[in-house]
Every structure is written in structure tokens, then in C-alpha cells.
């Protein structure tokens, strides 16, 4: 099988995370390996095995990837200046989930936020039939809020900060 070869709908993406309180995150090279690595975190709903992963019940997968950073250069006598990319961090993911205080994944996210030093492998998997493309990264949880405004269902909001350079793409 291969990666999906069509424009995907946003709802085809799902977020998965390693189980256990003290996981061993995948090494950088393994983050780009589907068989036996990323597939073990992704559940069967997205064509993985899910042996050591669980679904995070998020409302929306936020933007992920690489932040922008750049430097401007001006040259006297030239009409146009120049701009080049500089070192920048991976994009942090601020995520909203309906808050079920007994949900296993959300409890683990909450524990990770209180710890602040738990490295865990997360996977954004977009599935189309039997084909899946996966973005795997290692990250730490930086915040965990609960918004219990009376006009809506209770929500929890948390932020995952991916570790620098620790990501990989893979597919079925």
C-alpha cells in the first residue's frame, strides 16, 4: 500500500499517542518507519495495529509542521530587499477536546502536563480507505486547561510542544 493520492478531508485525520505513564518515544529514524513502529501507535481505524497507542479524542487536528522565522537584509542601491529563512521551532499544537474526566488519553495528557518532562510519541494519521499517511513526532505537554463555561459542554485545552528535529513521515 501507499500514501493516499487524493485531496483529503480534514476529518480524515486523527491523533494518536503512546500509552503508559513512562513511554519510550520512538527514535528520530523510527518516526519515519510505519511497519512495527508508527503503526503500533496508530489504531486499526487508521490502518495501524494500535498495540501501544490510543486515540486522543480531539475536536480538530490543529496546524502542525514548522514555524516561520526569517531575517531581512537590505542592500543600498537595490530596489528590493532580501529575506531568508532562519532557524525556527516546530509548530506547537494547541488542541481542544471535549472533557470527559475519566478518559484515559486525557488523563495521561493531564499527567504529562503536570510533569512537564514526559517525552511521548504522537501521530497524526490521515486515512483514506486502506491507505494512511502519518506524521509522527515526539513532544511534551506544556499546558492543560479546563474550560467549563456554562454555555457549552466542558472542554479541555492542551498544548503539545514537539521536540526539535524529532519527527518523521511514513505511510502504509
Amino acid at each position, binding site marked *: 500500500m501507499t500514501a493516499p493520492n487524493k485531496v483529503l478531508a480534514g476529518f480524515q485525520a486523527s491523533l494518536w499517542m503512546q500509552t503508559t505513564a513512562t513511554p519510550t*518515544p520512538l*527514535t*528520530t*529514524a*523510527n518516526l*519515519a518507519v510505519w511497519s512495527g*513502529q508508527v503503526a503500533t501507535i496508530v489504531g486499526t481505524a487508521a490502518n495501524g495495529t494500535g498495540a501501544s497507542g490510543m486515540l486522543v479524542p480531539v475536536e480538530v487536528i490543529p496546524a502542525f509542521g514548522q514555524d516561520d522565522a526569517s531575517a531581512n537584509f537590505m542592500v543600498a542601491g537595490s530596489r528590493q530587499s532580501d529575506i531568508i529563512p532562519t532557524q525556527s521551532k516546530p509548530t506547537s499544537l494547541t488542541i481542544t477536546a471535549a472533557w470527559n474526566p475519566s478518559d484515559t488519553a486525557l488523563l495521561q495528557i493531564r499527567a504529562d502536563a503536570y510533569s512537564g518532562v514526559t517525552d511521548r510519541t504522537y501521530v497524526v494519521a490521515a486515512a483514506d480507505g486502506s491507505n494512511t499517511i502519518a506524521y509522527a513526532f515526539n513532544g511534551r505537554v506544556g499546558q492543560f486547561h479546563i474550560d467549563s463555561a456554562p454555555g457549552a459542554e466542558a472542554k479541555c485545552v492542551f498544548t503539545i510542544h514537539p521536540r*526539535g*528535529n524529532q519527527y518523521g513521515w511514513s505511510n502504509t
Partner: protein
Amino acid sequence: MTVDEAITIIVETYGDIDLVARGLVVDAAEVAEATAEPDTAQAVALALLKKYNP
């Protein structure tokens, strides 16, 4: 350093594997002959070694 040793270093690191591969000194001829199973961490590492040791 042998290619096998270099691959092990790349596979086990949590750092920037591109940067790690760039700094490893290996024999380009040995790299050219090396093979790895597709969709494995070893294949990812070997591809990087081939990139910097053509």
C-alpha cells in the same frame, strides 16, 4: 567507522539525524554497497549516509 556502526548511531539518536549523518565519517564505497530493508530505521539511516557520502 563502519557503515553498520554509523547506521546504529543514527537509528538510536533522538537528535537531528540529518546533522548526525553529516558528521559521521564512513567509506563511500562501503556505503554504496550497503543495503537495508525498505521501511526500516536502517533504511532511513542508510539513505542519509548515501546523501552525504556519494
